[in-house]
């Protein structure tokens, strides 16, 4: 019997696979509670992802598709499965690995070695794009400058744009990422907890095309992005990688312990322990809420133009990444964090009135604010003294 070598010699076959009945089960599926043997698990795992791809019409024949690859569990399994399904079902896709080097020593440099191994193991070409090359700042530089409080915001914005830029360099139609069902459920929770309706509206979509922009100024390009693992449980991804002996890198980002997502993740895992359908239920709620937010959305869609600094799609003069970089380069770490309208206004006012000598002249430039608001606005600048000697936008 094929399964006999998996069991210890003295044990009879127990826990037979629910599907094939002939081999010992090695996994209990979180999604269905089914007990499956290794081969049936592989088959079910791969086929469900194939069905997700086909049912949602994610690709067209001949598409060039970049796989966002970090060397971590999700992207490694994604690369493996995309290649497998592309071959098995003749999707006709041109697959490329696209990796972002944020410049995090002891984390990203190690995981990039894993991606290079994946390139060789799966025979898929690889492009690595680095923050240092694109922006002049690595995450190590950024954290040194601003500390550990908002660094994930910087990293997220920069990575999104870096992926788009990499995709443009590669001339791809589509980017796929390894976001799994657990991730999406966490994101739904986070967006509810933070009252982020625009993100809530988008986060359960399996495809994001995105010429749209949310109210906090995150811009995106026209390259399609999708999440083939939207309905795939993290536990199954890990078990798949384990039983297939796939090579992946597994350490927490050294700057992440303070990330808000960590709280949502712990909460979700605890919820799951009590009610095993928590993940799929939350995604379901998220999808329903998305339709609701969309129907009620009364903000007008901003007109899209191009960033005056870098040319990236933006509805403001400066795209979000350039705004954040501006803050970094001028020692204004709060620039671009939180609600940007006030800060942009204040920043423009500060530039107009160069040679300021006192906070009073600054706050009078923000004429519409109340007295309390003016006080709040002033405290956003880390070092008031810098304002007086600050170069204008043109001279940078």
């Amino acid at each position: 019997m094929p399964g006999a070598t998996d069991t210890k010699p003295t044990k009879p076959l127990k826990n037979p696979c629910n599907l094939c009945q002939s081999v010992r089960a090695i996994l209990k599926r979180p999604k269905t509670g089914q007990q499956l043997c290794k081969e049936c698990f592989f088959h079910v795992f791969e086929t469900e992802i194939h069905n997700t791809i086909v049912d949602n019409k994610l690709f067209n024949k001949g598409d060039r598709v970049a796989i966002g690859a970090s060397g971590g569990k999700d992207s490694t399994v994604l690369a493996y499965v995309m290649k497998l399904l592309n071959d098995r079902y003749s999707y006709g896709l041109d697959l490329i690995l696209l990796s972002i080097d944020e410049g995090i020593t002891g984390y990203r440099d190690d995981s990039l070695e894993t991606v290079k191994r994946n390139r060789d193991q799966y025979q898929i070409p690889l492009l690595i794009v680095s923050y240092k090359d694109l922006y002049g700042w690595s995450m190590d530089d950024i954290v040194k400058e601003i500390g550990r409080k908002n660094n994930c915001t910087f990293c997220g914005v920069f990575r999104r744009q870096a992926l788009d830029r990499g995709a443009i360099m590669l001339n791809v139609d589509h980017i796929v990422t390894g976001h799994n069902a657990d991730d999406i459920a966490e994101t739904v929770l986070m967006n509810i907890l933070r009252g982020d309706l625009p993100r809530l509206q988008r986060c359960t979509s399996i495809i994001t095309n995105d010429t749209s922009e949310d109210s906090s100024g995150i811009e995106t390009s026209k390259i399609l992005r999708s999440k083939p693992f939207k309905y795939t449980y993290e536990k199954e991804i890990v078990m798949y990688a384990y039983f297939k002996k796939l090579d992946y890198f597994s350490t927490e980002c050294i700057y992440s312990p303070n990330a808000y997502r960590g709280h949502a993740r712990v909460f979700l895992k605890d919820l799951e322990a009590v009610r095993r359908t928590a993940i799929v239920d939350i995604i379901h709620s998220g999808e329903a809420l998305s339709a609701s937010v969309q129907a009620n959305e009364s903000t007008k869609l901003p007109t899209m133009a191009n960033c005056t600094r870098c040319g990236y799609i933006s509805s403001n003069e400066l795209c979000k990444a350039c705004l954040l970089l501006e803050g970094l380069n001028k020692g204004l770490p709060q620039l671009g964090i939180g609600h940007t309208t006030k800060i942009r206004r204040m920043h423009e006012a500060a530039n107009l009135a160069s040679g300021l000598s006192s906070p009073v002249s600054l706050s009078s430039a923000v004429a519409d604010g109340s007295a309390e608001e003016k006080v709040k606005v002033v405290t956003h600048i880390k070092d008031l003294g810098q304002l007086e000697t600050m170069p204008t936008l043109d001279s940078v």
Partner: protein
Amino acid sequence: MSQSDATLRIELQFSGGMELLFDNQKTIHAKVPAFFPLDTSAEDKHAATIRDLISWTASNLLKERPELFIGTDGSVRSGILVLVNGADWELEGELEYELEDRDEIVFISTLHGG
């Protein structure tokens, strides 16, 4: 060998980053007591279960940060998968599974980026 001295040879494997809590060892060949005291009585003992193994591992093998290994109710922290002889522990009774000599127990952490 008296009951209180009997040990089981258990092979522990750590992956997904778990090994960092154990001095970067991916495999540890442990000798785990075969019997553990019942909660209520120090004299009566029961056959070792995975629940016992987890607390024993935390006390004897863990080099740092027990809260990254142990979760609520003496189980592993949420997000850590456990395999017993190559199978999901959910198929083997989870915490109540009784250890046998030469069992292979794998702890895989999923708590990291993808």
